[in-house]
């Protein structure tokens, strides 16, 4: 079954009754969350609260962890991503990901961008490829930095540039959703600012979900915020979810208020 566009709802990804286990350990329990289309949703919470695990459930990256097991549903275009008829490879092609540590391939900048399209059956001329590389790099605000060294290794770039290369690489396969797992935690403040500006740019075409440790970043750069916390069994759960403005200024839950005012975490 293919994932068809379903315009009746405004949510890009919706989780229903989501539980995630690592072996016998329940890492995340009972998540009901609706990610709105073409908005930036931030997942925040203290270390170990399962926010990255939830993010990885959105494009089935947890499949790569042998002991991980998912219960419940993640709905994307009306289709449960975990139903047996869905191919994880297709999911990841439609829902891209940017990782915590910049991880460009040890190849040229050009090949970094073209790898995704090529493995996904891209057919086009050299000129088309050049155009695609330029468009992807421009979208990631990296074109001006690297246009003269497209055939140099991606590893020669600075950390912030590498991360933008990873974003450009994700954009090149034209996903609908981009998941970002603490994309700025390894970057300096100026690079962080650039990535945040980039996210606002990208919001016009893409749905973005970002995990961040940095509450200021969530407050600054997101439309919606989901706050996670672990319970007595160390299982992460969703405490509060709402528009960022509201969650930071007028939280409904006592624990959210304690976290955002820095009383723990």
């Amino acid at each position, binding site marked *: 079954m293919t994932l068809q566009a379903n315009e009746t709802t405004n949510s890009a990804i919706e989780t229903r009754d989501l539980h995630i286990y690592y072996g016998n350990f329940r890492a995340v329990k009972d998540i009901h969350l609706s990610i709105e289309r073409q908005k930036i949703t931030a997942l925040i919470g203290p270390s170990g609260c399962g926010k990255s695990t939830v993010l990885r459930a959105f494009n089935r*990256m947890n499949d*790569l962890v042998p002991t991980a097991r998912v219960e419940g549903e993640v709905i994307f275009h009306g289709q449960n991503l975990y139903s047996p008829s869905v191919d994880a490879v297709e999911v990841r092609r439609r829902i891209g990901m940017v990782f915590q540590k910049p991880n460009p391939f040890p*190849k040229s900048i050009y090949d970094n961008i073209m*790898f*995704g399209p090529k*493995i*996904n059956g891209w057919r086009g001329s050299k000129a088309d490829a050049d155009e695609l590389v330029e468009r992807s790099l421009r979208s990631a605000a990296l074109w001006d930095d690297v246009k003269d060294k497209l055939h140099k*290794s991606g590893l020669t770039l600075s950390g912030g540039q590498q991360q933008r290369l990873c974003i450009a690489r994700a954009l090149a396969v034209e996903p609908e959703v981009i998941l970002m797992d603490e994309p700025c935690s390894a970057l300096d403040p100026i690079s962080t600012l650039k990535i945040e500006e980039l996210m606002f740019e990208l919001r016009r075409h893409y749905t973005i979900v970002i995990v961040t440790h940095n509450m200021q970043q969530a407050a600054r750069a997101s439309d919606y915020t989901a706050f996670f916390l672990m319970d007595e069994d160390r299982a992460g759960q969703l405490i509060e979810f709402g528009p960022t403005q509201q969650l930071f200024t007028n939280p409904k839950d006592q624990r959210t208020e304690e976290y955002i005012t820095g009383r723990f975490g």
Partner: protein
Amino acid sequence: MSEPTTTSGLPQGPAITKHSAQRRRKGMLWRGMFIGSLLIGIIALITLFATIINDSFGLIVIDNKVDPSTLSDQPLESLDKAALQAILQQHISAGRFRQLNREQPFEERDQSDLLQLLEAEVIKPSIVASYTLQESLFERERVAAEAAKKYPQGTLTFHSWISGTFLVRPMHSNPALAGIRTAILGSLYVVMLTMLFAVPIGVGAAIYLEEYNGQNWISRIIETNINNLAGVPSIIYGLLGLAVFVRALERFTSGAFIGINNGNGRTIISASLTMALLILPLIIINAREAIRAVPQSLRQASYGLGATKWQTIWHHVLPSALPGILTGTILGMSRAIGESAPLIVIGASTFIAFDPNSPFSKFTVLPIQIYNWVQQPGEQFRSIAAAAIIVLLVILLALNATAIFLRNYYPRGAV
């Protein structure tokens, strides 16, 4: 206790200096011991090379059965084919001449061929005495006097046992005429075929174990067994090769299935398959280590773009693991070229006078040739064995250097 913390068990004041000096002295002692270990290793290596070189060069006394100057009044090299043939016919029996003609008709032989025949059949130079390099250099007078007294007919010359003719001559029972061409070709043939079998199988198994098979009890059992197999004595593999490749699969390994009549399965292909089994654990272990060392972030980046498992392995895991895989290949190759025990068990011939020309040929290899020569009585066999050891080491280093070159200069992206 309300004592300040500075009166704890730690040394204070001048005692700090004293103690740190003490610790440094202890460090110096260890450093001395490490230098000692290194020196012992270097001395051992120098001794090894000195021994080999000592045997490979030196003075020899050559005694010709027939003096070449009595055969013709001109130097033999300047004579043409017909003249050489006439001299040969004159000095050997008619029966022997016919026999040589049967082996290869004289019309087909060329001048250098005839010169070789003349040397082997008529002149029959024999090295009646040989001396080590050490004796030749430092006790030259004594050697000269002894040679003149014992072998008045002989000529004393300096001889390098390793020479161009030694490399290209086939096997011969006379050490003065023996060469190692067949052994070199045999060794190269066996090593190349071994790598052809072992590398794809070993890397394939490593990929399966690392990338496809999860961590479960089966993979742990397999891993333990592979590690143990790497330590099994090579002669055991020889027995396996003898039973399976030489005997059970004789129809295949003798080449009978494609119409080659060799009689038995003691062929290059049996040797290569046995060697391949021997080095497989080595290649698998190294390839697994290399694949495991590929950062998980690289795999995730690839999967995150919608790559399949195989695309991830082919485009990212294998290129990143290649240097490590090549390291294992180098180790395996070195082992395969130096190993003799399993080949002795499967029955490699020790005396092969013709070149191997197919995987179904009878063969010998350098280590077996060396082993064979050191067993023979006589100084001269020891010298040609030493020369063969040098050749073996040079081939080994050349193959390793090639592999290391490939590993270090393999283009990693555009780094």
